[in-house]
């Protein structure tokens, strides 16, 4: 399959808002979604590659990547009115129901690849973990969270950049 090109003009930089992380979970029988990053100024997916390097007798290095453990931190993650994920995490925190932290699906949508007509490229990670790191702050209540991607990935596209998007897995050949 050909590599998809960016939908950007030559030398145009991709704005940060074109990279979206969306959490999805089930509440009773209802599927809920929330875009992560409200009031967060800076957040990156850290891949945390586990690497091993050997050097042969000629001094040449051979580096293997054994695995990646992608993680994304959101700090601040403010307690905001209307935030369903915030309420969900707060409920889990109160009950100390830690196993429920690992029941999230995460979508990484790269809106700098694709378009509104054909859809935007996305990765769906199932069985991911979202954890709260602390609770407090100064003027506003902050509950920074960390998102741990499962690497159980389905590649595909989303048809729109909206809470009610449809995810379509790529066709396998």
């Amino acid at each position, binding site marked *: 399959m050909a590599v998809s090109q960016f939908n950007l003009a030559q030398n145009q930089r991709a*704005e940060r808002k074109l990279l979206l992380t969306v959490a999805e979970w089930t509440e009773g029988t209802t599927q809920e979604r929330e*875009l992560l*990053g*409200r009031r967060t*100024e800076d957040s990156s997916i850290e891949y945390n590659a586990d690497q091993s390097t050997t050097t042969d007798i000629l001094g040449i290095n051979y580096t293997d990547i054994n695995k990646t453990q992608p993680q994304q931190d959101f700090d601040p993650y403010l307690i905001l009115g209307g935030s369903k994920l915030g309420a969900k995490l707060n409920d889990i925190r109160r009950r100390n129901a830690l196993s429920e932290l690992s029941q999230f699906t995460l979508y990484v949508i790269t*809106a700098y690849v694709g378009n509104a007509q054909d859809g935007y490229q996305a990765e769906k990670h199932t069985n991911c973990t979202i954890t709260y790191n602390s609770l407090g702050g100064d003027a506003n209540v902050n509950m920074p969270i960390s998102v741990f991607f499962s690497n159980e990935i389905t590649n595909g596209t989303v048809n729109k950049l*909206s*809470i009610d998007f449809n995810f379509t897995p790529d066709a396998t050949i």
Partner: protein
Amino acid sequence: MPRVDLNKRILEYIYECPVVEENPMYFTVAEEQDNSNQLLVGREEPRDEIAYVDGTVERTYRAEILMYKSVAYSPIVTEETSEGKRVPSDLYLNENLEDIEDGQTLIDWIQEQNDNRHFPNFGEWCIIESVETTSNRPVLNGVNPELEPPLAQYSVGLVIKYLDTSKQLWNN
């Protein structure tokens, strides 16, 4: 997306305050006269904006409300009590004391609106965070003695923080 005239929305909002409502309000340029008010819009620099990863931007609207008041050059009249202490007389209220109270009433009103989350309407794309004053007391900027009557200019700084969601790609 229709553009919202923030200045008009601020004027509408400030006009809800009784001490402003009962007096003439000017925008940017004012005819200085006793009890007139003036809204002066401040600078809003792009570098002060905070861009969030979801595409929303926190912006700040700054303005000053200037209040013109005639001044009194008479001292605070005091009376001697039977114990020999000098206290302000109720009979000789000082105009300057009364006039600055209008500014204080405006500040108190703005702070009360903020506490009650009663904000100006910046349109559907803006979420207002807070409406605050830059000082807890009106500031005396100066007195123009060449006017008749001489006018004092008091100011109340206004800072409105709001979240502009218009450039966000994501649609909730």
